[in-house]
């Protein structure tokens, strides 16, 4: 579980208090520049706070060692891709780096974790293939498996659904739900409000570096919030989910 309390930092995060409980998919939405990515990077210690606090599990962010934090929090950056066409399995094995002593080879436990991650991400079939031979949807699943292989209890995914076709977007959201079902605290930034309203347990709406609304999707993505933060009006589907969108 990750808790932000009155966090302010560079890159436009002014005052954010938020919780990312275990077993829950929490969607982070907001216009471009609202501070979504910054929020995730703050939780990883990639940026420093100017005020407020971030608590991960049972202790403040600053009390975590680099390696322990890497074991506790997994990160799937935006637009992630492999810079070298390594084999899918080799890429997923990188997720075991925090568990391996310097210069230690891949242990049987590491290999088992990699196999399990590949299976959970539905990527085992093409584990032996090179990244440049895979489709965008397959690469996204391999990168997702890499994040799972860390065995972390929190997973921060930045726009994992971007650049994917609708079927693969839905599959990825289902995979995130499955991870939450295993007790993982999942935080995911999304541009697609429809995906956020249907696949997240909770939604946090960010606007200019502060929380504009949060709670269950129907409440957080209310007509008033959508109008004031995004400048849009939406049609509602079954259960209040976000449907067709028009500009106000």
């Amino acid at each position, binding site marked *: 579980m990750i808790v932000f309390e009155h966090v302010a930092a560079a890159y436009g995060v002014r005052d954010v208090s938020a919780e990312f409980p275990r077993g829950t998919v929490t969607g982070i939405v907001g216009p471009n520049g609202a501070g979504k990515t910054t929020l995730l*990077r703050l939780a*990883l210690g*990639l940026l420093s706070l100017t005020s407020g606090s971030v608590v991960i599990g049972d202790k403040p962010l600053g009390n975590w060692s*680099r*390696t322990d*934090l*890497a*074991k506790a*929090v*997994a*990160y*799937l*950056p935006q637009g*992630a*891709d*492999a*810079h*070298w*066409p*390594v*084999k899918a399995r*080799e*890429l997923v094995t*990188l*997720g075991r*780096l*925090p568990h391996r002593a*310097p*210069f230690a080879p891949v242990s049987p436990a590491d290999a088992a974790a990699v196999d399990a991650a590949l299976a959970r991400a539905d990527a085992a079939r093409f584990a*032996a293939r*090179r990244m440049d031979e895979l489709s965008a949807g397959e690469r996204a699943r391999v*990168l997702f498996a*890499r994040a799972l292989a*860390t065995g972390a209890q929190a997973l921060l995914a930045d726009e994992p659904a971007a650049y994917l076709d609708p079927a693969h977007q839905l599959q990825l959201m289902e995979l995130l739900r499955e991870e939450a079902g295993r007790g993982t605290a999942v935080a995911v930034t999304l541009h697609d409000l429809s995906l956020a309203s249907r696949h997240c347990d909770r939604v946090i709406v960010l606007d200019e570096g502060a929380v504009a609304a949060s709670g269950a999707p129907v409440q957080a993505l209310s007509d008033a919030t959508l109008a004031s933060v995004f400048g849009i009006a939406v049609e509602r589907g079954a259960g209040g989910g976000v449907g067709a969108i028009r500009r106000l």
Partner: protein
Amino acid sequence: MDGSLGKTRARLATAVLFAVLAVAFVASFLLGPAQLSAGVLFAGLFDGHGAAGVIAREIRLPRAGLAIVVGAALGASGAALQGLFRNPLAEPGVTGVTSSAGLGAVLAIYFGLTAASTVVLPLFAIAGALASAGILYALSRRGVGAVALVLAGVAIASLTTSLTALALSFAANPYAMADMVTWMLGSLKDRTPDDLYYATPLVVLGIALLLTASRGLDALTLGEDAAASLGIDVGSVRGRVVLGVALATGAATAAAGAVSFVGMVVPHVLRRFYGYEPSKLILPSALGGAVLVTVADVVIRLIAPDGQLLLGVVTAMLGAPFFFWLILRLGRTA
């Protein structure tokens, strides 16, 4: 699974590289302007007596040994730089690291600083290499792309090359022109045992530093933020690669001048045998670089036994067309 197949390919490639290196090393030792038989040279090597002893110990062995050390430094540096910049075009020559190391060496020699100690020369070369590697590192931190990085390297290389020429024109030395060409193109001609003794430990230290960064380089395949989220201290990885490359390339350049393209060609060719992970390429690229430089140094002596052909000419003739081909290929995939 294909893992074991991949390992077999890698082992086979390693065995072939060692075999070629052994043959080329012996050939390098046996070749030279003094027409001595193999028997006489080996006898000279072991007893050290007479002209054969001097030629074997003071001329042939340092030259053959330096080819290995210089090649290993350039190959490993190329593999590490490519991993750091995630760019197959990166290598010490193209990024201007060798030419600025050359400038450092020339400054040390022509302003008389080498008189103080023989270690001054490699130290100045390392300082030169460190300066340009640091500039490139700062540029890459600002998110400069693959081709822009190489263009920056071209600018560094032309600046340091002209400064080298400037330094040599001011130096009151009748051989300045000839020396300039040797420093800019690189040569293993007329090396002394001292060159080998000073270069070897520095190159070994540099490569060792690169090896400590190899796991971080693998993680950088995922990008800097993802690597950091895996517990990698990305700043420390960068620092170790820049320092390791400066040590290895600086020491190699102090001994042999600015030899280009070895660090680009070798890792690229070896990827099909060892895979794409940077950690799997550093030591094989050191071995492959040693093979390439030793073979090239043998070939130039076979083509021009009087020593008119310089090592860097051959590596550039091999490397430059390869460079074009890589750029074309990058353009297609990007």
